[in-house]
């Protein structure tokens, strides 16, 4: 495969209570804050007016926020709904929410929690928010696999109707979390979509 065919259009890293866009620190919070409090503060900072956010589990909130920051100021109207896809991955699947749901089963099992006990729901939330109807895949892997992300996203852009793809890593387990999300497309930028470039951004934090 020719990895020169696709490019990184933008990136967002959220880790250690900091939000970085295209390598620059946009906003940060006290690192001792509880994850849920941090996510709420980030929502107030970067979004607001999306009440469904508060119903999401931590994984969906984190991925949704990363997409929100990444896609701010980008004109989606130039693309058909089917032309934007999602390719995400993590280590713990939905285990963080699985455990929380498990705890509710003892008394009153929560349907609202159960619907988040799948890792791909975060892709559904992002698709609903932005009206994306393109291809989605979610991989579970031990660590951020920059080779997989760069090679597969390149192939998707070359062989499917997708013109853009949100790809990356969205991981939450208890208070431990990190996300690195990339917008990639065939539109040339200074950063070709390579494993090396993805890793360099992922490792900023």
């Amino acid at each position, binding site marked *: 495969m020719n990895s020169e065919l696709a490019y990184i259009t933008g990136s967002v890293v959220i880790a250690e209570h900091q939000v970085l866009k295209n390598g620059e620190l946009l906003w940060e919070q006290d690192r001792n804050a509880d994850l849920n409090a941090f996510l709420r503060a980030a929502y107030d900072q970067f979004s607001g007016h999306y009440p469904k956010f508060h119903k999401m589990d931590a994984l969906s909130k984190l991925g949704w926020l990363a997409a929100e920051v990444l896609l701010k100021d980008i004109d989606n109207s130039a693309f058909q709904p089917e032309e934007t896809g999602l390719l995400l991955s993590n280590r713990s699947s939905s285990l963080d929410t699985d455990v929380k749901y498990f705890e509710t089963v003892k008394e009153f099992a929560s349907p609202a929690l159960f619907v988040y006990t799948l890792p791909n729901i975060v892709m*559904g939330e992002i698709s609903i928010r932005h009206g994306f109807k393109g291809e989605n*895949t979610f991989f579970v892997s031990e660590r951020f696999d920059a080779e997989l992300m760069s090679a597969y996203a390149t192939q998707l852009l070359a062989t499917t109707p997708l013109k853009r793809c949100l790809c990356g890593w969205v991981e939450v387990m208890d208070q431990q979390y990190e996300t690195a999300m990339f917008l990639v497309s065939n539109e040339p930028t200074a950063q070709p979509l390579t494993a090396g470039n993805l890793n360099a951004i992922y490792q900023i934090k």
Partner: protein
Amino acid sequence: MSEKVWIAGGGVISGIGLNLRACLQSFRDNQPGMTAMKYLSSVHHATFPVAEVKADNATLAEMAGMPEEISRTALLSMIAAREAWESSGLGDISRYRVGFVSGNTVGGMDKTEDFFAGYLKAPNGGRLRQVVHHECGSITELVADMLGIRHHIATISTACSSGANALMYGSRLIRSNQLDVVIAGGTDSLTRFTLNGFNTLMILDQEACRPFDETRVGLNLGEGAGYVVMVSDSLAAQVQPWCRLSGFANANDAYHQTASSPDGIGNYLAMKGALDRSGLQPQQIGYINLHGTGTQNNDVAEGTAISKLFAPTYPLMSSTKSFTGHTLGASGGIEAVFSALSVKEGIVYPNARFQHQMKELPFAPETEWSEGHDLQHVMSNSFGFGGNCSSLIFSKV
């Protein structure tokens, strides 16, 4: 670079049989797999019928050649993946660049539940070893190790379309010449976790489910695993392939976390995308293996999307979940094997318990087993929570 991707074999273990031939016999004999719970222990055992694999863990472990304490999800996976490999006639697996791509949603949840049960009784009483293989990825690694697969291993978790998405990814690994062979599909075991969860969503039928029937009220959960062996052009020349994977597509419904949009737009886009990719017209599809869970919401959305795409002439259709139950992450893999075999042997599977025409739809599913059809192209639908919709097309050699 391989121009085409071929299906060279398949294996299934499910509530209607411990291997593919046994499953076929159950279809022929009209023997669905839903019964009262026997192997899973749950407070709901008298309420909800399930399609369990009819064997305890000791038996499955022996079949798999793995230790009994390993998650049932891995045991099922191993049994079906090995059957798939052996059916391909490719022989020594170490001779090829082979990948294993497996979808699942519960991982080792069955063992985690056992751990919690012990843990809640006595905080030091749970056996930590049981939770080591909880993560979905561990299941895939365990089975790949047993099969001797080292070149590429991947786990996909996109709810009920996981197994179908594994085929899509596997196909691309072959097309791009990264691998010569991919064993792709999915596995999931029944757990109290999923049973409780689907119960809270109030979409479980207390009787055997009735997909595409006007009176349907919900689904039955099942368990199992199903894998196909996909090969490149050069390897296809050495074996007798069943059929080709000629098209596939995935789309997001972008409507709700769990519910399908009323017009089934995601379903429509997946089917349309798969047709476009294979270069086929709707009327060239001879049979559709429906997602057909038996919930109010799924069947009307899927049916509406089919109406929009196929009117005025409809292919034969059925939901094999009326036999196997809904096997979640395994279903796309299991139904891919059924669909590939459908092309190869001209089989149309029955849709059990269909009696009442859905008022929204102009077509009805097939209710009888039949064979000897000249099926050039067969479509398999798998739609999951999170709006994840996949459609695969298998075509005659």
